[in-house]
């Protein structure tokens, strides 16, 4: 580690310097949090892999999953990561209204994704293939719902930070919160790519 990375204590702190430093530390801490979250998902993936054949004489993924539905979900989420990217550009340029517009688009796409997931779950539970039917379905519902819950948390975050942007404008604190929310959002999109390829695709193709 170079000395340049060591930034403590030039003696005199100003509020602005202290705040700038805190923002940098929060970004770093958030990356580390995402790493822990990634481990949680990795373990859920491993659990799913272990249990993927434990259908207890019930239905497997081949009959339960529908390709168009899953593809549509994937497209919604991928599109939302693009709109969040445009929001980030607007944030960097300090444009409040464009930020809000792109955040709204992200929110709607994310909401669509969650709604589709809920409708898929609802259909499966109504057909008697809920999470308590077999070990396979327990693992499926838990992995996918953990992702869906985190996407919902992200949606709440978009609403809250959107309100903040609307009320207070883009100050450095709000921008840093939006940066971390963006990291979270892209992370969840990547996890979904994993879910799509490990959970759905092998059972549909």
């Amino acid at each position, binding site marked *: *580690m170079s*000395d340049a990375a*060591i*930034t*403590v*204590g*030039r*003696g*005199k*702190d*100003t*509020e602005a310097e*202290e*705040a700038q*430093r*805190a923002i*940098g*530390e*929060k970004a*770093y*801490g958030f990356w*580390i*949090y995402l*790493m*822990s*979250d990634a*481990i*949680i998902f990795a*373990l*859920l993936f491993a*659990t799913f892999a*272990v*249990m993927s054949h*434990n*259908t*207890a004489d019930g239905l497997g993924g081949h009959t339960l999953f529908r390709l168009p539905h899953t593809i549509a979900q994937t497209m919604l989420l991928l599109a939302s990561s693009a709109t969040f990217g445009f929001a980030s550009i607007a944030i960097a340029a300090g444009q409040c209204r464009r930020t809000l517009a792109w955040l709204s688009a992200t929110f709607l796409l994310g909401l669509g994704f969650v709604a589709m997931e809920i409708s898929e779950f609802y259909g499966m539970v109504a057909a008697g293939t809920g*999470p*308590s*039917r*077999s*070990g*396979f379905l*327990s*693992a499926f*519902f*838990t992995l996918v719902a953990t992702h869906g819950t985190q996407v919902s948390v992200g949606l709440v975050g978009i609403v*809250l930070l959107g309100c*903040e942007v609307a009320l207070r404008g883009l*100050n450095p*604190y709000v921008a840093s*919160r939006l940066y971390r929310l963006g990291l979270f959002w892209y992370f969840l999109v990547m996890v979904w790519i994993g879910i799509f390829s490990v959970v759905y695709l092998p059972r549909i193709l």
Partner: protein
Amino acid sequence: MLGKLTIDALPFYSGIVMGGALITVFGALAVVALITWLRQWRYLWTEWLTSLDHKKIGIMYVTLALIMLVRGFIDAMMMRIQQAVALDSHGYLSADHFHQIYTSHATIMVFFVAMPFLVGLFNVVVPQQIGARRMAFPFMNSVSLWLTGSGAALVLISLVIGKFSAAGWSAYPPYSEAAFSPGVGVDYWIWAILVSGVGSMLIGINFLVTIVKRRAPGMRLMMMPLFTWAALCTSILMLFAFPALIVAAALLGLDRYFGMHFFTNGDGGNIMNYINLFWMWGHPEIYILLLPAFGVYSEVVATFSGKQLFGYESLVYATAAIPVLLFGVWLHHFFTMGASPDVNAFFGRIAPLVAVPTGVTIFDWLFTMYRGRVQYSVPMLFTLGFIVTFIIGGMTGVLLAVAPVAVMHNTTFLVAHFHNMMIPGALFGYLAGYQYWFPKASGFRLAEHWGRWAFWALIVGFYLAFVPLYILGFMGMPQRVERYYVADWQPYLIVAEFGALFILCGISFLAIQLVVSIRDRAALAVSTGDPWNGRTLEWATASPPAVYNFAVAPHVHGIDAWWAMKQAGRSGNRAIRFHDMIMPDNSSAGVVLGAMSFVFGFAMVWQIWWLAAVGGLGIFAAMLSQTLRDPAVHRIPASEVEAIENRRSSATEVEAIENRRIQVHTLAPGVPT
């Protein structure tokens, strides 16, 4: 309205449980009454509970650990008494009650004694060792504390309302599943683990960021004190390992609450998956508990030998290698559970490798003492006791890691082995750290006399309590039996019971030591801030340190930075000019969040859904109140900093001479001067 909660949850079914419940309730009421009588609520609230000062948070962590140590030890005594008397009889505990005690003893000792103790020491010491003014995330630190506290409160209240889990601290399915444990006990365990587990993950993030980002100018990674290294490696372990525990406990909860089939016998459940997940956390957890103790020993050995640590770099590499190896050895906790020979062979070969870096650390400590001027202070006694005793534990561990002799798994040999790791390995380290850094946190030393008594009682008690269990393991006694029919076992169990009595004396001496030291605090005062002639930066601050730790950030050029400053005559130099300090404001959101997670956990245990919603919303609101707000800070003006520093240096001059005299007399009675 009240979910599963009825009047039957109160312990009218057993006099012993009722007694325990009454002690818990009256203990809590007595504390509340005392604080009210002393009119200290406002002080407690503004100065402690809502504080974001890492030193105060650290002291509160250690206080929690010491209180829970008493509770966990009472559990241990009750089990020892039961096993001493339960030959051909039921003893005085029912089987169910014995297994609850068994579970709560281990759960409390691991999650609510060892974890808060080590995190408390980190909090007091690490920021000062790296020359930082505060933690990277002071509010998150407070949240972690109160999450740990609310987890502990869930375990405590399970004694009063309902029952605790009887499924062992590892809660193996299928016994921990709803089909075999239909009560709320396992749910209490799950929620206590989840709530405090999240706290531990946050701690890991906080210390990792603080150590990486907030070191003093010039302090490279390879200049950090060993205790800070231990904190860094422990934080990384927490970040990697705790997700596994959280997943294991959460999936078990899904089985119990929603009838899922992760770990059930039928319908596609897979019991081994739980055991893998649990030990993926469980084995690293052992070193989460041990590495901080190793860090303490390194500091103590260097200070009380008056020498730089021998082989600093090899100690660092050993400390860092242990976490890497650990993630390849978890399976040795269940060699007997039917994995294929190839799998067992792989883990059987990796497991003993951990002994290599551990051995390196032991030799480094020995060589540090070699030709050093060793002072037999209380922290040093604990360290020496550890070195001798831990080697026995390490060798029995290698024995257990050899797959072909796995017949000793699940015997009292195993119980003796891991207590051999946890008591001399971890607890002695924390106690050494407690004795060593107490003057740093409080401004006065602990009375040496009672510390020595405590040490001797604890180490004699340890051998008396656990050597019989090693022998009983060879004789084939399984762990966790509440009664037995083999008369040959009883004499050993009675000896073990006497050992527990010695440990009781040791804990009592620690309590007496604390009381006596507070009484005599004027005579034991150390306002120089450096009572042991220390080597690392935490001794550069005042005792107790000012809220900002360092008025002027120290510049570091090598290891043992404070020692180098003293040698260069720069220890007493005062800043010409002081600057304003910017420090975080206190926040009540952490306490509220902890209280609300307790409400949430309690409601989930009893399935009182409306109350769970209240708790959940409370957690959300508390979090929001802090995160959607720009960091609240206040400015300590330079004039105030100067006043604080001036007070300190005038006190230092008066007491420096006095202290040197005391040191010669109390620290090194055997050393010719």
